[in-house]
């Protein structure tokens, strides 16, 4: 079986599990939503400030949710020893990485769209038509980077004790460039503050490089990482 075929099958399986278990809709989404609400409370419900910092808050909420999603994606495997079983059965490690990452990308994209809607409702954010292309490109490239980092470190911490605390410590410094880049690019796309639309595209190049580096690096490193 080719790497891509394995990836596709695993992603489909993961998404089906998530769809049936409803953990995302019942727990992760409400968590992301309450994060947005408490950001609003922490910033004193000041809509001027909130509108200005909304892109950053959306990405922060996304990253916190990423941690939950990654843990979930790997506890599904580690609980039944499925990861080991797949390795013993000779399933391509790069395929597993790809599948897990694709599953995460889809879940994160859905989450980001909903968080943006929440930002429009709660923080008074507006989306302008000429920024939509930049917005979508940014979301896709940033999400690929986030999913690659999450899958890599999730797989590394899977099955070891203390993983719940290790995952954020490893992931958050690593995705800091994504937070910076994606926040600025979305600011440009939405036109918050003084951000120009044209400024956004150089951030997309950073996000793409990040996604490629961690995508390729993660796919190559995943085999040695999860091997016993």
């Amino acid at each position, binding site marked *: 079986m080719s790497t891509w075929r394995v990836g596709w099958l695993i992603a489909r399986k993961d998404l089906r599990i998530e769809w049936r278990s409803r953990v995302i809709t019942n727990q992760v989404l409400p968590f992301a939503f309450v994060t947005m609400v408490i950001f609003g409370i922490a910033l004193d419900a000041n809509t001027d400030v909130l509108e200005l910092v909304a892109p950053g808050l959306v990405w922060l909420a996304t990253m916190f949710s990423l941690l939950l999603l990654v843990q979930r994606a790997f506890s599904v495997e580690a609980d039944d020893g499925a990861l080991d079983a797949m390795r013993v059965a000779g399933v391509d490690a790069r395929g597993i990485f790809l599948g897990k990452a694709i599953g995460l990308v889809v879940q994160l994209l859905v989450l980001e769209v909903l968080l943006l809607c929440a930002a429009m409702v709660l923080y008074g954010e507006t989306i302008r038509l000429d920024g939509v292309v930049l917005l979508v490109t940014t979301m896709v490239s940033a999400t690929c980077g986030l999913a690659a980092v999450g899958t890599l470190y999730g797989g590394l911490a899977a099955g070891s*004790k203390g993983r719940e605390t290790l995952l954020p*410590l*490893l992931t958050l*410094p*690593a995705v800091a460039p994504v937070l910076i*880049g994606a926040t*600025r690019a979305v600011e440009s796309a939405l036109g918050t503050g003084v951000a120009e639309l044209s400024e956004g595209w150089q951030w997309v190049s950073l996000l793409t490089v990040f996604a490629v580096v*961690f995508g390729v690096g993660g796919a190559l*490193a995943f085999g040695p990482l999860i091997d016993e």
Partner: protein
Amino acid sequence: MTTLDPKPTDTPSDGGTVTPSRSTGTNATRVIGIAAAVAMAWLVLFALVISPADVNQGESVRLLYIHVPTIWVAYLSFVVTAVASGIYLFTKKHSLGWDRLAGASAEFGVAFVGLTLIVGSLWGRLTWGVFWQWDARLTTTALLFVAYIGYLAVRRLGGSHQQRAKRSAVVGLLSVLLIPLVHWSVVIWRSLHQTASIANTEGDIKMDGTMLFTLFVGVVAFSLLYVWLVMHRTRAMAMEDMLEDRGLDVALAERRAEGAGR
């Protein structure tokens, strides 16, 4: 465990005289250690007494004599970690020696970055008037600090030595890839949204001969110290690994004896 009655294997029985067991020191480390101590004393003498105060910065320039060497050693140790991780991962032998070198180096890297951040922020308070500026160098260094604390946590995850080595080698290599990415992102960020900095004195210093020499002594002293520390630490880590293996062997033997006696 008391050391009064050492196990028979621990003391070589050459003619009944009990020779003290060897620690991690050798002649090489002793020479390096003495050189490092002398250089440190020299550094303190030059940095605090002999070298003059700077024309622009005043006395706060004296902080640079430890700030610059600590960040130098920190980056040096992260590069050593990355190189050792790479050698471990890409050679067929997968020698644990390289893994321990990477781990020991990262420990001191984290410590020296921590010192750099402390001393640097004090210097910033004196020179810029603020402890922290969100510029590319500072932000990158701060994230690096956290990233390598994560690396050390990965080393303590447990599992076999080879497992530890593989995991940490991957993290060690990726953390180094992170340095240019973080730096790049912060550079564009800060160049786009240039906030009025509180004090725009970049802390320019006209280095005279004594100052340059003091800085040089500092770099040499801290580099020697780093080499000394890493040599001792890798050897201690090797012994820790041996002890763990021995403990495992003993446990296995006991288990086997249990099975046989049944």
